[in-house]
């Protein structure tokens, strides 16, 4: 019993640290990536008193930026505007952060790791209604943003909060419908079981990934997910030309850093969900629990530990690839107008999502898949 609790705690801490580290690295990734896209050099001047440079050390822009950004943010004055609701103003960043982080608990990052006689399921919490859990936590994520905008006692912040809330509840529907069609396809709400259903190959070469069964649901989930994370082209809630910075206009110092971190944690979350539902999660093509089975009939046996490590690396690489895709989209597409945003959500994604669910149901009933 005690050892199971210990394993559970270690898994939870590993997942949490992986997400937070990746979010912090994405902060640098985005600054450098945007610079590459715009033909600039980007963040490379954060050297500690120019110390290393003078000694002729190579440029450590990456490490320095990672250290300098949080240091700068957390040593700034934490300002609370006059007339603000102090309690809610302080609570809002945590209300926004908490649901994003706990959602990762049900995302499987590997199959099974066998140590001694312990079969460790590489998933922080093995829930048999994981899809419902995801929808519940995403639904609760709205409060932090909405109350952060309201508690600041600033009209721009309130407008940003209202925009963010309206946008998030609109796109939650499309996201939910995409998840519903995947649940119908695999007949389970358990994400680990979904990943198992996606292992193996069709025709000897095509991986059995969800995207080949449900391409429309994939587009729905990716688009709705990007809208949920409120980034360009969906960053109306913080449209800086109209609303200063939207719902976190009145935040500074550590609390603003938390709101920035949420942005990146949400990118990681969307990537993890897309990977799990549509790209096989931790599945590596032709990798089975006992090793590689290549199309030519070749077989390469691997111990369980090696297979588990390959699976975790595969999952991480897929997640990072989708993070990169989202950053690329953010620096490529222009911002929508607000009416375009609402039209896309309610008249575009929602009917497509409903039709997709109906077609999926018909295929399941009549073709008996």
């Amino acid at each position, binding site marked *: 019993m005690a050892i199971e609790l210990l394993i559970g705690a270690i898994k939870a801490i590993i997942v949490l640290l992986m997400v937070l580290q990746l979010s912090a690295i994405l902060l640098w990734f985005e600054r450098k990536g945007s610079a590459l896209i715009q033909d600039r050099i980007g963040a490379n001047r954060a050297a500690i008193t120019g110390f290393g440079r003078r000694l002729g050390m190579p440029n450590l822009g990456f490490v320095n930026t990672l250290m300098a950004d949080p240091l700068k943010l957390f040593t700034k004055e934490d300002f609370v505007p006059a007339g603000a609701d102090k309690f809610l103003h302080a609570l809002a960043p945590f209300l926004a952060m908490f649901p994003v982080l706990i959602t990762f608990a049900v995302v499987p990052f590997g199959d099974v790791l066998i140590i001694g006689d312990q079969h460790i399921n590489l998933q922080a919490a093995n829930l048999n209604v994981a899809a419902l859990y995801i929808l519940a936590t995403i639904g*609760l994520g*709205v409060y932090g943003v909405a109350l952060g905008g309201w508690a600041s006692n600033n009209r721009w912040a309130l407008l940003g909060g209202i925009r963010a809330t309206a946008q998030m509840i609109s796109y939650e529907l499309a996201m939910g419908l995409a998840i519903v069609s995947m649940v119908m396809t695999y007949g389970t709400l358990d994400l680990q079981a979904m990943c198992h259903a996606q292992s193996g190959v069709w025709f000897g070469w095509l991986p059995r990934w969800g995207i080949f069964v449900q391409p429309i649901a994939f587009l729905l989930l990716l688009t709705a997910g990007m809208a949920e994370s409120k980034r360009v082209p969906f960053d109306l809630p913080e449209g800086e030309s109209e609303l200063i910075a939207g719902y976190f206009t009145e935040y500074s110092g550590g609390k603003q850093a938390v709101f920035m971190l949420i942005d990146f944690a949400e990118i990681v979350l969307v990537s993890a969900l897309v990977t799990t539902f549509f790209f096989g999660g931790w599945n590596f093509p032709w990798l089975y629990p006992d090793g590689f089975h290549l199309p030519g009939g070749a077989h390469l046996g691997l111990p369980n530990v090696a297979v588990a490590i390959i699976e975790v690396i595969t999952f991480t690489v897929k997640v990072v690839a989708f993070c990169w895709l989202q950053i690329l989209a953010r620096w490529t597409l222009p911002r929508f107008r607000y009416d375009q945003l609402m039209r896309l959500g309610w008249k575009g994604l929602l009917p497509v999502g409903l039709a997709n669910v109906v077609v999926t149901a018909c295929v399941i009933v009549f073709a008996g898949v």
Partner: protein
Amino acid sequence: MPLWLFIFLAALSIIAAAGLILQRHPVHSLLALVLTLIVIGILFIGLGATTVGFLQMIVYAGAIMILFLFVIWLLNLQTQPLEGGRLALKFLGALGSAALIAELLVFVLHLPAPLGHNQPVAIDYGSIARLAQGLFTSYLVAFEVTSILLLVGVVGAVALARRTTAEGAPGGSP
């Protein structure tokens, strides 16, 4: 779930429900209500009704309460001083709550098994499969009628909203 956890969550839900009534500001009251609903959802999950618990969180805590928040914002409700109220209303309120407590007592007294004697439940008791089986076999008619009722409500709301725009100022921004 262990007894101490149940007592903790039950106490938390009662405190949050009291907060709903005692808070002066509508937004604070709303947050207390959200907390109440989430804790009740967790209680459902802990007692085995997993699906119902998560649906409670998605529908009530996640969706309906956001609507309440929008209504509070749109009506621009501020902190209200507690008014005295009319004596007749207080009397009726006291009568109503007394009736509710009496009903609860009657319900507890007529339990099939005495409190503290747990009946073992099936292993898939709160599962989504079990719930769906009930909904689509024994309670199919009630389920479909309810869904039609909701649909009528949605269509009615849309019709009302459209009529106001047609009769009032021409819609759209200037």
